[in-house]
């Protein structure tokens, strides 16, 4: 009897707690978050954690490593090729991002004007972005070929140069060439995103400013730019991240050559980890990218999203 009595008292309690849970916003919130959290843990946190861990081991292909502390980083610290790749990556990211921003904003402003065939132009601008990177990289590979470059051919035909331009064989030329290819590819993303931002600015602001006698530069400086800043922050953060982690373009065009002048941290990480077999060191190079990426994110977050500045106040 005592058992059944217990059962009788326990059952309503269980039903009560289930029904209470079903109406508990906190519990439901956690429950609904769970799939996304699992997804992030499995596909983002775990690989990132594994990469960081590998960076502290001497794992090689086919051989589980042991913990070696900071040894990989110490070796990299003394490695000139690594520092060259850091320099190359910063140069590549900075120059390409500035150019992409300037040209992308310019293109967005033009596309925001009343143009004939506006929709057509907007669609066509996206082409470099939708073409797979490897395909456009192969096209650039031909464009920059040491012997068969169409640019060299055209300039030679015009009598402007005597010999083909050594696009990818000279360190400076090679850096400029890969940056140009990256800019060509990245402009549409910046331009179209900024165009979307431009279209959210109410025309009435411009009309009011015009009535007040503002010049077009003043309208851009005091209306367009502040209103666009949040979008610029997001777009440029993404753009910097994409550029910093670029791999395909370099891998197809130069493999990091000539003499490692275009080796980025991502390509060096791959070269050391997979063909070179040193997963630990490759992971360490990849992990060494994280502080730079975090700095880029923090800069855009704190540097470009200052609301007072957007609202016309002081910095």
């Amino acid at each position: 009897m005592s058992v059944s009595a217990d059962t009788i008292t326990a059952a309503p309690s269980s039903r009560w707690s289930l029904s209470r849970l079903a109406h508990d916003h906190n519990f439901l919130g956690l429950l609904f978050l769970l799939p996304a959290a699992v997804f992030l843990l499995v596909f983002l946190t775990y690989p990132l954690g594994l990469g960081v861990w590998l960076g502290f081991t001497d794992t090689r292909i086919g051989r589980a490593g042991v913990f070696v502390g900071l040894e990989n980083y110490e070796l990299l610290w003394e490695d000139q090729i690594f520092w060259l790749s850091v320099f190359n990556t910063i140069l590549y990211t900075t120059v390409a991002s500035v150019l992409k921003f300037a040209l992308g904003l310019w293109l967005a402003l033009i596309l925001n004007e009343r143009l004939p065939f506006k929709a057509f132009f907007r669609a066509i601008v996206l082409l470099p972005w939708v073409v797979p990177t490897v395909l456009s990289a192969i096209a650039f590979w031909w464009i920059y070929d040491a012997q068969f470059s169409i640019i060299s051919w055209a300039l030679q035909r015009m009598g402007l140069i005597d010999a083909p331009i050594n696009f990818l064989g000279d360190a400076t030329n090679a850096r400029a060439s890969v940056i140009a290819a990256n800019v060509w590819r990245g402009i549409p993303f910046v331009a179209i995103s900024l165009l979307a931002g431009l279209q959210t600015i109410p025309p009435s602001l411009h009309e009011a400013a015009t009535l007040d006698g503002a010049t077009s530069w003043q309208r851009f400086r005091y209306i367009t730019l502040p209103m666009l800043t949040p979008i610029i922050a997001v777009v440029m953060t993404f753009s910097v991240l994409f550029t910093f982690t670029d791999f395909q373009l370099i891998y197809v065009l130069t493999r990091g050559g000539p003499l490692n002048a275009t080796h980025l941290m991502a390509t060096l990480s791959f070269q050391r980890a997979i063909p070179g077999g040193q997963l630990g060191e490759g992971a360490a190079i990849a992990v060494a990218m994280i502080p730079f990426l975090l700095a880029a994110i923090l800069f855009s977050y704190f540097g470009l999203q200052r609301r007072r500045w957007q609202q016309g106040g002081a910095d």
Partner: protein
Amino acid sequence: MTISRRDLLLGGAGLAAGAAGMSLLGSGPARAQSALKFTPEPGASLRVLRWSPFVKGDEDSWLANTKKFTELTGVEVRIDKESWEDIRPKAAVAANVGSGPDIMWVWFDDAHQYPDKLLDVTDLADDLASRYGGWYAGPEGYAKRDGRFIGIPLATIGNAICYRESWVKEAGFSEFPKDTQGFLELCKALKANGHPAGFPHGKAVGDGNNYAHWLLWSHGGKMVDENGKVVINSPETIEALKYARELYQTFIPGTESWLDVNNNRAFLAGEISLTANGVSLYYSAKNDPKLAEMAEDIKTTNLPIGPVGESVELHQTTTAVIFKYTKYPEAAKAYLQFMFEADQMNNWIEGSNAYCCQTLKAYASNPIWKATPLHEPYAKASETLRPNGYAGPLGYASAAVMADYVLVDMFAEAATGQRTPEEAAKRAEQRANRYYRV
């Protein structure tokens, strides 16, 4: 060393190998001599991952032979292809993850990077060696570790100079120079006539490494000694670098950026008079009706001999490995054994049109090597090759040094004048020491 039919008949494996030799001449079935029999597991099927062929006949022949195996044993074999540069990462992933193709064709010292993940195939290798005149030492070294075979040496992709005969004659050379000094003179004369030479100084995995290793070894330099101590910074290396600098002056501009395909392109466009490549370069011209005239003019020869007085080249070796994780090890061995039997292997070597050089000595008498004089420089690739990381052991460090382009970069730095030969050698020493550290 070339093994003749007489050697075969007199050798320890005389009877069996002799039968194999006879079979090469079409007078007897080699399979009858099989000492070992591998019985495929019931319901077995295999996945093979190979590099994308450069010569169509190679693939056609391999597939036809595979079909024969399936008909004979009922074992389905699926053959996948990957671009040759993607083989190394794929094999690495398969080894690390423990899943993927049963058999893979890997390059150079790949097998030495994950020997524990590979099936011991010593029984099969010894069986084939005993019946087909033995393995050539070079390819065998790439497939053997601690006295055990971790793969079956499949082929050597020979590397030789391809040149335009008419331009060489026009430059005043009735025959192609055999030594490095004569070769330099030829390249100078060719350049003066507007027909420069061209060898890759960029990140060309195959051609760049072949060229750099030849430069180094022909002058007596080496990366490490027998104990794995880095000895690249030596007077011999400095001499090699000085020679490379002189040779570079005779090149077409832009070779610093050349990847593996660029020398082929430049040669087929008539932009350069000579380069080093597999025989596929000649066949690219021969199979193109528009290049018929050029194909007639192409000749091949081995790279010149340097101060060391002997021919020393890297070439490119490929080994067939079976991963330990395979569910069907017996089927995999049976398959490889079948593909190495005389009927199949001869067919494949012929189909490959001299692109793939045999690793078993008995196949040296394959008629393909005499089919045209253009094939001859490729015939002894397996016999004359010197392994990567010479004179040290094959393994992680030798593979990593090659993957990091240490030699290729060293020669590019010195040849282009970006560093003095002394600086370039010192820098290569530092870079190599990172991998050969204890």
